[in-house]
């Protein structure tokens, strides 16, 4: 660890994806932030993944047009 700038773009991209499914360790978070600070490409990649996250939310609650109002449901129920 030591150097927080040590991660390559490839490794940082991997962390950005991983973050969608599990929490990053403190060291990983520092490496990610440190790299983002000095890199122009990775923040764009990160924005893509955040856009995907947002898109997925819309998609999850989308129903076919005739099937009723498109108001997104709130929390999933406990049936």
């Amino acid at each position, binding site marked *: 660890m030591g150097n927080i700038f040590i991660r390559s773009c*490839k490794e940082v991209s991997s962390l950005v994806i991983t973050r969608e499914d599990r929490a990053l360790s403190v060291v990983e978070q520092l490496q990610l932030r440190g790299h983002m600070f000095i890199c122009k490409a990775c923040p*764009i990649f990160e924005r893509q993944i955040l856009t995907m996250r947002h898109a997925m939310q819309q998609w999850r609650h989308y129903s*076919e047009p005739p099937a*009723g109002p498109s108001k997104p*449901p709130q929390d999933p129920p406990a049936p």
Partner: protein
Amino acid sequence: MSFENEVAALRNYLLRFARLQLRNDAWAEDAVSETMLAAIAKPQAFAGQSQLKTWLVGILKHKVVDALRSNLREVNASDLGADRESDELDAIGFKTDGHFHERPADWGNPDQDLSQRQFMAVMDACVAKLPPVQGRLFLMREWLELDAEEVCKELEITATNLYVQLHRARLRLRECLELNWFGIQKA
């Protein structure tokens, strides 16, 4: 509209999800039929505290997990082994030193695009193109909103394996969306 009709009107929505998740029309039809029957048999269970759609999806989740449990054990082992060697990260294009070959494309600010029906069709198609196991794991996380622990328990896989598969699924989806949606929007 009667309760039965309201339930019936949501059949297509439920079916779309069940098909994506189960990738088998017969299983999907079964799961949706069971869901609708269960709902109609117990209308009093729907106390109106949530949207009908939300309540039905809640029931369907259980039916889908049941179907996965009873039908998928044998598929898992072989599917998980497939394309284990490939590295989807490389599809993005990195040099040997780990830098980007080309700067990633700016996807813009697509807030206004994402509720479109066309986008949903692209998303459906991209998810459907994922390898079977990746697709199921991905949907369990993103649509069923199960946490990692639950998914591992349902499918009897390790957390490490789950994260590897989800990682790949997300990279494939990113690529598919870029090719079929965001790239085209910019061009």
